[in-house]
């Protein structure tokens, strides 16, 4: 294994800036690592080796450019984000043949900052899932144990980063899809505030919940990627028109946690939490106290309604968002159809997997005449209550802390026959999407029984990514580093 691969994103960036490493060398190191680990991992749907090398050569030929904060840094992109000229499938058969002619805004900003895209990461089809088992293409393995799932839906991104195939990746988080795989694989995963990063080019699942964010090895790395992709975008009306803070400066300004108050929501620290997860997380909170943090108990009383509200909102939006995949203009069309409705039915039945079809049907149902008030409108009301809960809790503290996932990564296939059980795995992550707030998962060591990574979730105030990242960074550095994952060592 190349020494380069053991560097963090910011570490590599310094070496590239100093001229000690070429962009091509960085890319070659990643491609070699991909070649070595992909057979065991299957994290990437598409590896764009030739274009990545060509781009790296271009960068080297032009010379290091200090105006490009990610000059020469190889990254992976979740296959839910459009990449100009590079196949984008959303892990769905219905987009099997789809090559976009436009970049997602976040991707365009990464490219403009000098980043090199090495591949497109596997995911649950259309980001619907918590294990990446719903990919129509391949089964991604957890880098710590190939018999286990990497989490989802950004499981490919988390596995790829954790296995050192790339120096960072973008994922998307609708109900925990960045934080949960980060927790289950043992990397850092940040879901920014809703509206912090442009959603343009993110193939929508639940539009009012979706956010793009980084998966990286360190909090500093996450801050470096967020700094590039965050900020207003005229192409996304829901993207906030507010300036981006200096995250690096915010991180540097917080050597310890004195003066920091961490809120512990009682609803997140009770029953349903696996023993070894509970043990690792309480140890992490103790570490925070050791760094000078104060902790207070807070309450999010409407949390118990979050899963119901979330699945209604997300599936309703999904049922409409996925209507465009009709086989008319792009994507896969069933050739055997006799007439229009038949063409839609055949193309969509063949193109979408079971989970996607299940969510489209539930979403269609909750929006139907006569059911709208009982479901969608009620869910929107619950959502407001949940948002108020978080505002009240965050008035008593700087950040909230809790679990990401109630359990460590489970065995492949363990829950595929029980979708409801799988939905319940999102219990600690979805509230934050409903509230639109930023959250981050940081590795809190390996579970005593399973030996699998456990992540701690920190949640912050809207658009206070700077404050959240600063606390997360200080704590992250004090928590145990699990090192190179076993399954790809």
């Amino acid at each position, binding site marked *: 294994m190349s020494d380069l691969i053991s560097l963090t994103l910011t570490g590599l960036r310094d070496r590239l800036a100093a001229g000690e490493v070429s962009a091509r060398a960085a890319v070659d190191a990643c491609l070699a690592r991909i070649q070595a680990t992909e057979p065991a991992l299957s994290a990437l749907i598409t590896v764009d080796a030739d274009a990545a090398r060509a781009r790296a050569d271009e960068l080297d030929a032009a010379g290091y450019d200090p105006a490009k904060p990610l000059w020469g840094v190889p990254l992976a992109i979740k296959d839910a984000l459009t990449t100009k000229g590079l196949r984008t499938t959303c892990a769905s058969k219905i987009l099997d043949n789809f090559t976009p002619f436009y970049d997602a805004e976040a991707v365009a900003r990464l490219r403009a900052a000098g980043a090199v895209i090495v591949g497109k990461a596997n995911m649950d089809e259309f980001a619907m899932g918590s294990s990446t088992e719903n990919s129509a293409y391949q089964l991604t393995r957890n880098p710590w144990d190939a018999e286990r799932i990497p989490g989802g839906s950004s499981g490919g991104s988390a596995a790829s980063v954790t296995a050192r195939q790339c120096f960072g990746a973008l994922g998307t988080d609708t109900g925990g899809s960045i934080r949960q795989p980060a927790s289950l694989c043992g990397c850092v995963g940040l879901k920014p505030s809703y509206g912090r990063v442009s959603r*343009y080019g993110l193939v929508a699942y639940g539009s009012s919940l979706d956010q793009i964010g980084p998966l990286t090895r360190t909090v500093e790395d996450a801050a470096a990627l967020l700094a590039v992709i965050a900020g207003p975008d005229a192409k996304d009306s829901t993207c906030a028109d507010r300036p981006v803070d200096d995250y690096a400066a915010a991180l540097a300004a917080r050597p310890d946690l004195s003066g920091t108050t961490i809120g512990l929501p009682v609803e997140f620290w009770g029953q349903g939490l696996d023993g070894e997860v509970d043990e690792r997380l309480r140890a992490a909170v103790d570490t925070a106290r050791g760094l000078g943090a104060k902790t207070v108990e807070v309450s999010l009383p409407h949390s118990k309604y979050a899963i119901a509200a979330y699945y209604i909102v997300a599936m309703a939006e999904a049922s409409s968002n996925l209507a465009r995949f*009709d086989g008319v203009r792009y994507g896969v069309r069933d050739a055997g159809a006799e007439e229009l409705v038949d063409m839609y039915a055949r193309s969509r039945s063949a193109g979408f997997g079971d989970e996607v079809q299940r969510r489209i049907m539930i979403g269609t149902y909750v929006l139907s005449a006569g059911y709208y008030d009982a479901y969608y409108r009620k869910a929107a009301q619950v959502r407001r209550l949940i948002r108020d809960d978080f505002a009240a809790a965050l008035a008593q503290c700087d950040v909230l802390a809790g679990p990401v996932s109630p359990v460590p990564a489970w065995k492949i296939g363990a829950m595929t026959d029980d979708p409801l059980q799988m939905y319940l795995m999102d219990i600690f992550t979805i509230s934050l999407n409903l509230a639109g707030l930023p959250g981050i998962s940081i590795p809190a060591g390996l579970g005593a029984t399973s030996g699998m990574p456990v992540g701690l979730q920190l949640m912050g105030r809207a658009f206070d990514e700077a404050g959240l990242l600063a606390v997360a960074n200080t704590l992250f550095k004090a928590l145990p580093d699990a090192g190179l994952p076993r399954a790809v060592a």
Partner: protein
Amino acid sequence: MPDYEAVIGLEVHAQLKTASKLFCSCSTAFGSEPNENVCEVCSGMPGVLPVLNRTAVEYAVKMGLAVNCEINERSVFARKNYFYPDLPAGYQISQYESPLCGPGHLDVETSAGPRRIGITRIHMENDAGKNIHSSAENVSYVDLNRAGVPLIEIVSDPDIRTSEEAVAYLKGLRSILLYLGICDGNLEEGSFRCDANVSIRPRGQAEFGTRAELKNLNSFRNVQRAIDYEIGRQADLLDDGEAVVQETRLYDAGRNTTASMRGKEEAHDYRYFPDPDLIPIQLERAWIEKWAAELPELPRERRERMAAEYDLPAEDARILTEEKGLADYFEAAVAAYDAPKKIANWMVGEFLRRLNETHTAAEDAAMGPESLAALVALIDKGTISGKIAKDVFPDLFASGRAPEEYVKAKGLVQISDAGAIEAAVDAVIAANPAEVEAYRGGKTKLMGFFVGQVMRETRGKANPQLVNELLQGRLG
């Protein structure tokens, strides 16, 4: 058989004349090559997002203000979900629970007197594309140039009782849209479209009957005929003891009938919900006030002003103000030559007839207002006769040539020289001794014959008044 009363509500879709589409920067130009004005947003590619065109909002608010609507400072876009190949995203972005404009009204003139038609709401939405079916190739093509073009939908209250009122209301709306300069108002090209909800009930009954929604009404005449047909059809059903079925019916102009397109059970469930990709429209009071202040003189005000200012007959004023271009033309002509009544006569007669025949808007006519004014002035000065003016009108209308130069070049200047006309009079008298005798014997009706003969002799150029005087002198 009971005496029935019809209850009619109209849904009007008007395309807004913005340069770009409602949610992307593609051109709205009509008549481009198929799929020329299309981007990733209006073709519904994965991951794209809509961004609202502010000018479209301004136009829609102005229409609301012009028809006395309440303007809602906060309004929300909603998705209307249904599958069709010309609808790229699988949903139309419309407004549902919170439209841009609330209740308003339009006053219209009918043969039974003035009527006030309530307007329920005006909301914004994007248009769909077009499916083009080729039976020869057995394929269907989709043209998305129109997909995303901004529309406003103007929904009337069920206040309309006759097809005449319906047409008066539609003409009134169209006229206002044209005055505001926000819509082409072209029914055939579809920039102004109308669906009609029609039901009937025994006169005096308060409850509404079951309604049918009529589609494919692409001219004022078709609106009138379709509604009349539908009222008759429903009356026949009720008279026969049958029930009217709630359904959508397509008007067939060729046969002048309506036929069922889809029934209630096949009606779409559009599953409206707020579009999460767009934030609510939040209008500032100051913008609404600014737009209100910018409203031009509207048809009704202009009709009243022109009737008074130029002393025009009410009907002429109505016709001349129905389209802004025509009213502008009239006032420009009057500015060039101050003879408003004569100019109005020429416009309501010859000019409008030719505009209609050639499907030309007044502002696009080759014959400009100065030309029409000059033509009227030539008649007044006696340079040409009214008859000659009528004869040359088609040429002038088509060519736009200056009337003075034209009549000179064609040698049509009126002969007002008594000497020249006398010669012709003498010749006519000499050539028709029998008629002269009859005339002198009391058949004075023959004067017309002599005038005609003299006019022929002078190829129509003789001043008719002079001809009359001279003939009377000779024959007297």
